[in-house]
């Protein structure tokens, strides 16, 4: 979202602008109704009520009980809290299984667990980014404490078969954690049906505020806290509740509940028309991710012979905001670990571009990209030594 005229924000997988309706709901809790929900006075009780109302909205969205929700500061904290918490709450099992295409919040946490003596196994994925279930079946055993596989990948949008994975995990009594940061609020989630024991989510990925998220943990799943301190969140997550943030998260859940279906359809239409337009205007482009089974708003492509950042910067000059690989890694030099795990060659991985559409995009945004993007590709290909025409 941008001041300049004609700016087009197509980086909704990195973060979504908060919905104005969400902001409106949060506003009173900054000043007028500001209090600590732990305080027993009237102002405190109103803050407590607001937190609990948001909790109900969240639990309706992901189909869980209210006492299974724990508010956090975002997806990364939720991932850390779930993985470390599950591991440190027990001592018999020592193996953690994850995938090669997880977000860094999961992968780096697993690296850390490895230093603490846990065995980490990363399941491979196929060319579309779907986790190898046969591999998982063989890898999960009675030493496995946790299987952590994301619900949908943030770079390519591919949606994983959680139900099947959950069954494999539970066959051996392992806990199944899923990083659902990219799916909550975008596609229906039913913890029971998906067989998920722990679910991470983040407000700013579905039009809620930044700095707030949740870990949902099904009853009976043991875990240690990550933040120690006061008695907040049933002794599992200490720290004064971020009341406006939690209220905003709740409001985002409520809006998603009612608008998810129609929104999914219209976003998918935008995305498909962008892909069709690009394909028509530009040769030698490939789609990354599963052709059908992926998030409606995600379009990840590789443009042959040219590099991603140079496309991004050119788009940026036209007020078009996209991303090349994960937002979190765009400051790095390495090609996306997700694309490489899917078998995309290095040069095409370097030449990848992610357009991610959201609630506030319009057909005009797409038209603008289709107008501008082919010229950029042409210009960059003209100076590319790999391009021989």
């Amino acid at each position, binding site marked *: 979202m941008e001041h300049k005229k004609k700016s087009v924000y197509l980086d909704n997988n990195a973060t979504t602008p908060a919905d104005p309706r969400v902001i409106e709901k949060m506003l009173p809790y900054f000043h007028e109704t500001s209090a600590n929900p732990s305080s027993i006075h009237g102002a405190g009780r109103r803050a407590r009520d607001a937190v609990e109302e948001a909790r109900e909205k969240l639990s309706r969205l992901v189909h869980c009980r209210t006492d299974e929700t724990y508010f956090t500061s975002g997806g990364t904290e939720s991932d850390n809290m779930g993985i470390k918490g599950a591991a440190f709450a027990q001592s018999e099992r020592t193996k953690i299984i994850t995938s090669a295409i997880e977000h860094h919040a999961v992968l780096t946490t697993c690296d850390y667990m490895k230093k603490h003596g846990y065995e980490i196994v990363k399941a491979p994925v196929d060319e579309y980014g779907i986790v190898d279930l046969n591999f998982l079946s063989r890898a999960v055993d009675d030493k496995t404490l946790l299987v952590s596989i994301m619900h949908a990948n943030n770079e390519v949008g591919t949606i994983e078969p959680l139900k099947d994975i959950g069954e494999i995990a539970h066959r051996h009594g392992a806990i199944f954690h899923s990083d659902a940061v990219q799916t909550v609020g975008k596609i229906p989630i039913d913890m029971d049906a998906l067989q998920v024991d722990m679910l991470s989510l983040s407000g700013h990925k579905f039009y809620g505020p930044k700095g707030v998220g949740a870990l949902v943990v099904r009853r009976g799943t043991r875990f240690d806290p990550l933040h120690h301190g006061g008695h907040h969140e049933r002794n599992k997550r200490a720290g004064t509740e971020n009341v406006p943030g939690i209220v905003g998260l709740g409001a985002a859940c409520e809006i998603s509940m009612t608008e998810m279906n129609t929104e999914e359809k219209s976003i998918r239409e935008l995305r498909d028309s962008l892909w069709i337009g690009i394909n028509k205007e530009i040769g030698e482009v490939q789609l990354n991710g599963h052709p059908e089974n992926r998030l409606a708003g995600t379009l990840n492509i590789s443009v042959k012979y040219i*590099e*991603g950042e*140079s496309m991004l*910067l050119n788009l940026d*000059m036209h007020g078009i905001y996209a991303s090349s690989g994960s937002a979190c890694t765009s400051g790095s030099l390495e090609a996306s670990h997700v694309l490489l795990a899917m078998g995309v060659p290095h040069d095409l991985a*370097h030449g990848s571009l992610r357009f991610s559409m959201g609630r506030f995009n319009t057909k005009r945004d797409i038209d603008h990209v289709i107008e501008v993007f082919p010229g950029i590709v042409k210009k960059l290909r003209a*100076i590319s*030594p790999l391009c021989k025409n």
Partner: protein
Amino acid sequence: MQYSEKVMDHFMNPRNVGEIENADGIGTCGNPVCGDLMTFYLRIEPRIEDPNKACISEIRFKTFGCGAAIAVASMASEMVKGKTLSEVTAMSRDDVANELDGLPPIKMHCSNIGVQAIQEAVKDYLKKIGRDDLAGKIKGCPDKKH
């Protein structure tokens, strides 16, 4: 990560893009696997008695790479035009980066590749005119794969 105005200018309007037919020297550095590849084409005013004093009269390049890579190639091409081969050989990545008003630390390697690719082209020229002795003294591209 923020690019300077000069980087953005050279990136958006790169100077000396292209190839030179029957170039006197051609040099490549980088690798698409690493995300950066540059090829420089040189036209050189010969100076048989002392090739190191020969001047670069024309330069063209092609680049696959990030914004910094393109800007570096463009800026480096401007910097070496008219220079003698020994001056070019003495150039460092910091010279180009400074001329661009700096580069983000993680992009300094682009500057390296740029300088090395040009020096590779100089080397190529020296070899072509049979001066392997002089060519051998130029570092150029470490492993032709940066």
